[in-house]
């Protein structure tokens, strides 16, 4: 199958035409530099995204604390990971780096806090 893609490596934003009929030999056109090929192949074989969000905190100076995935997770897990966040309520104090949800959907990546919330 042939598809269109915008490379997100730099401001050029090259419009790529990607042919992935043969998964072991993905053909990329429209790129200006080699990074376009790497981007396209990763997008097709294992697209990943960082997910950020916020969860409730009890007994803290503010009602919510921001969180992120420690690293990018498979794109297909985005909405499942967000559902997990809704089930969590933390207790203040919370510190940057504290694990909020461990091993999201078995992918090995944790949600961690990105803000310090002191207890009142």
């Amino acid at each position, binding site marked *: 199958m042939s598809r269109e893609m915008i490379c997100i490596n730099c*401001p050029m934003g090259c419009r790529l035409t990607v042919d992935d009929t043969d998964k072991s030999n993905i053909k990329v056109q429209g790129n200006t530099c080699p990074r376009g090929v790497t981007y396209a192949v990763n997008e097709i074989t294992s697209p990943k995204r960082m997910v*950020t969000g*916020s969860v409730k905190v009890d007994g803290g100076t503010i009602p919510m604390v*921001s*969180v992120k995935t420690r690293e990018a997770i498979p794109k297909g897990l985005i909405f499942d990971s967000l559902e997990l966040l809704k089930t969590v309520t933390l207790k203040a104090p919370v510190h*940057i780096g504290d694990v909020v949800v461990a091993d999201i959907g078995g992918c090995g990546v944790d949600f961690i806090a990105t*803000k310090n919330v002191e207890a009142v």
Partner: protein
Amino acid sequence: MRNINLVIVGGGPAGLAAAKAAYDAGERDILILEREAELGGILNQCIHNGFGLHTFKEELTGPEYAARYITEVINRNICYKLNATVIDVSNSKVVTYVSAEDGLVQLQAKAIILACGCRERPRGAINIAGMRGAGVFSAGTAQKLVNIDGYLPGKEVVILGSGDIGLIMARRMTFEGAHVSAVVELMPYSSGLNRNIVQCLNDFDIPLYFSHTVVDIKGKDRVEGVVIAQVDEKLQPIKSTERLIPCDTLLLSVGLLPENELAKNAEVQLSNTTGGAVVDENLMTNVDGVFECGNVLHVHDLVDFVSAESENAGKCAVDYINGIAPCRDKTVISCTNGVRYCVPTVLNRDEHYAPQSFKMRVANVFKKVELAVLADGVKIYGRKRPVVAPGEMENITLTAEQMQTLKQAKTVEITLIKGEVK
């Protein structure tokens, strides 16, 4: 009235970096005034990642980036006041603030750094016709409601403006369970980063309509829908293309304006192009001892650039406090041929020759151009760029030698030399 050497208005990224640099330059009598209940400014609500690649060589979220600088400020025991709103800055450098704790306080400062950021353009600034039902928010307000307060301001959303905040909010609203039916952009291009179009819209099949705008808002008590229309090349809506999109919420991401009400009180001269102050390479305004940095000066793309600029302002403010006399003889930098503005706006014709960075924006999308600096009409610096766009701030750094040539020149010009123009 209490005397104080350096007052910094604003405890966001600009104020924090300025305070840190001023301390490191030897100043100890510093006070940061912050109107919110915590330091960090707008970074606190920017919970997405992508901050700090330049400064820390890693991708942080907004709150993490803020925390790094807050730690620096706290480790240095720099004084700050929270919930303290500055209501006036005078030409003679008297700062007036109010807080529930202190009441109304006046401080006589030796130097002031205005680091109070920018504001979003509201509905009134773009004159959208229609009803006045609830459900019209600026994107940043919605961001605060969702990320800080934990409220979802709507379920069926249309976003006007495809700047980065609009794009980020399209993804955030989707993440939080809302449905974003469209992002509508007046221009034929987005001022947001391509990576945000991919990550925030394409990933979730959110349509982006270029050359479209919102012409009417329906709904008496609550927004019930917006009418969008295509615009012609003069950006005028085309009647026959109007169509109704049902929604309960309209988010506006239609630009940011530096917040210079305090600067105006202090009789600071403002630039018509940036909305910020006219500053020299020391980031000092026309009022001796009053400095500006960060988004109050000009709207930046990346917080990393705000931090770097503000550290420079902090250092220069300390030089001023220590008695280095301001230079009176200035050259205005002229921006031509598609360069919209440059910061610094003026150059001191002094004999201080140090490497200097210049930040600028272009007025349109141009391909295959050379960004050039001319001293008395002669090119002293050129940088080829495959593409320049209004949404991407250009940054060039000149050497001490080039600065010497520039400072001795009668005219200084920053221009675009165009090859093939699209």
